[in-house]
């Protein structure tokens, strides 16, 4: 009996060690991070901070520097570089205690250094070009910054209340001809919002958590207001497929950084929100 009590006591001392064991999902992500770090095929960066936004922003900034440095070492006189496809930057997010660890990475083959004397222009695609699997994002000679963007590998279903999937009227006008527009520069908070929106399961909760920054929002069939406004398009699986910014008379797809139209996505429905 006494021996049993002693054994129980010793076992109890061991329990805190077991309880501190890492969450299995987090452990799997850390394992994936280490796999990527060991591979020679990737460029990566990471940041661990108390708030998620800073961690994402810092990690992306460091990745830009890493890519620039790598491109120079490869011999290219690159001040800019082209990312082969917009969604090639992947993100893995884990925790270290109360801190957020954000790890961003890209395959080396998806980074193409660009020489200064190459003239590049942003061209609005036609509807057919949207069907292509691989897309090229190019920087205009006006834009001096890199085109690195974040996209999230994990997407979550978004719960939408009262979705009404009614047919959308056919556009009356012909598609606009390809025109040259100034390059849209993705801002840090937009990258972060893209990450947050792709992960939310409840847009109402997203709004409630961000009341300090979101002025108002609306769902289909509420018309999208004029002026500066963000528009999300959901498919019938309630997943966010397109994220746009309506500004200065344009609707810019924030994943492709090109002008876009809602009626290019006939089966999707819009949510919109405006920032304070």
């Amino acid at each position, binding site marked *: 009996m006494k021996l049993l009590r002693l054994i129980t006591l010793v076992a109890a001392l061991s329990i805190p060690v077991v309880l501190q064991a890492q969450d299995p999902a987090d452990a799997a992500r850390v394992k994936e991070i280490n796999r990527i770090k060991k591979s020679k095929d990737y460029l990566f960066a990471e940041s661990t901070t108390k708030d998620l936004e800073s961690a994402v922003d810092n990690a992306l900034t460091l990745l830009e520097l890493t890519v620039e440095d790598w491109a120079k070492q490869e011999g290219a006189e690159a001040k800019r570089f082209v990312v082969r496809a917009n969604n090639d930057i992947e993100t893995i997010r884990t925790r*270290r205690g109360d801190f957020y660890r954000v790890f961003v990475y890209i395959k080396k083959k998806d980074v193409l250094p660009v020489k200064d004397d190459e003239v590049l222009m942003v061209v609005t695609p036609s509807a057919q070009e949207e069907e292509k699997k691989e897309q090229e994002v190019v920087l205009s000679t006006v834009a001096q910054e890199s085109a690195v963007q974040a996209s999230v590998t994990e997407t979550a279903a978004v719960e939408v209340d009262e979705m009404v999937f009614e047919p959308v009227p056919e556009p009356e006008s012909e598609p606009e001809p390809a025109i040259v527009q100034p390059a849209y520069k993705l801002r840090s908070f937009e990258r972060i919002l893209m990450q947050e929106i792709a992960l939310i399961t409840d847009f109402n909760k997203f709004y409630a958590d961000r009341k300090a920054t979101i002025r108002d929002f609306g769902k289909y069939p509420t018309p999208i207001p004029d002026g500066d406004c963000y528009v999300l398009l959901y498919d019938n699986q309630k997943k966010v497929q397109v994220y746009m910014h309506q500004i200065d008379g344009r609707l810019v797809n924030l994943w492709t950084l090109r002008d876009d139209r809602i009626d290019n996505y006939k089966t999707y429905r819009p949510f919109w929100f405006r920032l304070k």
Partner: protein
Amino acid sequence: MYMKKSILIAAALVALVPSFAAEPVSVEITDGLDNAALKTKMELTMSSLLTEINAAQEEARNLNFGKLNLPKNVAVSLSMLWENSPFMCTDDVIVEKCLVTPNGYQIRNIPLMMTPRNDRHFNESEYQEAVISFDRKGEVESFYLSLDLNLYMQVIKSNLEVKDLRRRELILDYVEHFRTAYNQKDLPFLEQVFSDDALIITGKVIKRRSSDNIPLPDKITYKKQTKREYLTNLRRVFNANSYIRVTFDDIKVMRDGARPNYYGVTLHQGYSSSSYHDEGYVFLLWDFTDEEAPVVHVRTWQPDQFNGKPLPEDEIFSLADFDF
């Protein structure tokens, strides 16, 4: 007899508990080092060190250097860091590339969580990253905490004058080492990093009152010291205090236009010791002409408050104030 047997069994079981408490930390160096034997040596050294750190933190004891085979100066500096605040490595697998430095090699981004003691004022983030430097034979040369990432990002993002990544990292590396030298009371490093003709200026706020005991506006007086005078006084401070804690929470780096190897670094510094605390601006004039051995020619300190208000920016020492 039965009682003795029970106690022995229980003692054996309790002795096993610590071995389950601290997971060994494994280290893999991915890149930057072709010499396989050297790589393995450095990996094993780091693994042993980080595992011992975690074990000591878990068991609430001091670090045991007996089996680690570290140079004495490294053991002393680790003890100093531990005295300020014990810490632990957050990851049980470390995968990092190796950077080549003028003196050897460096592994950065070792994730640590600080676990400050209750009686200590701790004004930094609990999460820190360590840097371990090795000489060319793979022997540990130093272990120190890197600058807070936000400070690093300030330099990276905002300062157009420090574009070259390598030079930026070198400057920040030395600023990190400089800060750690105070925390670890590393007088030999400070002896080496200040040039022999370094100019040290220390500002002091003088609180004044009239003969009627009416407060008068504060005045800042500045005192010049030679390197020898400064380090002698610093030695006294180190001996008189059980711990010194220096933190930086703002940083500006400016390159001299006419002399591209000279950089002015302005830091907002918090200083705590067992007997004193202050905050102020430190300006350092760094000379990177010899990248293997950069030196500080000027160090100034000024209080960050004057007459109850923040010190005006144009009063803070900068590159423009020195003709050299």
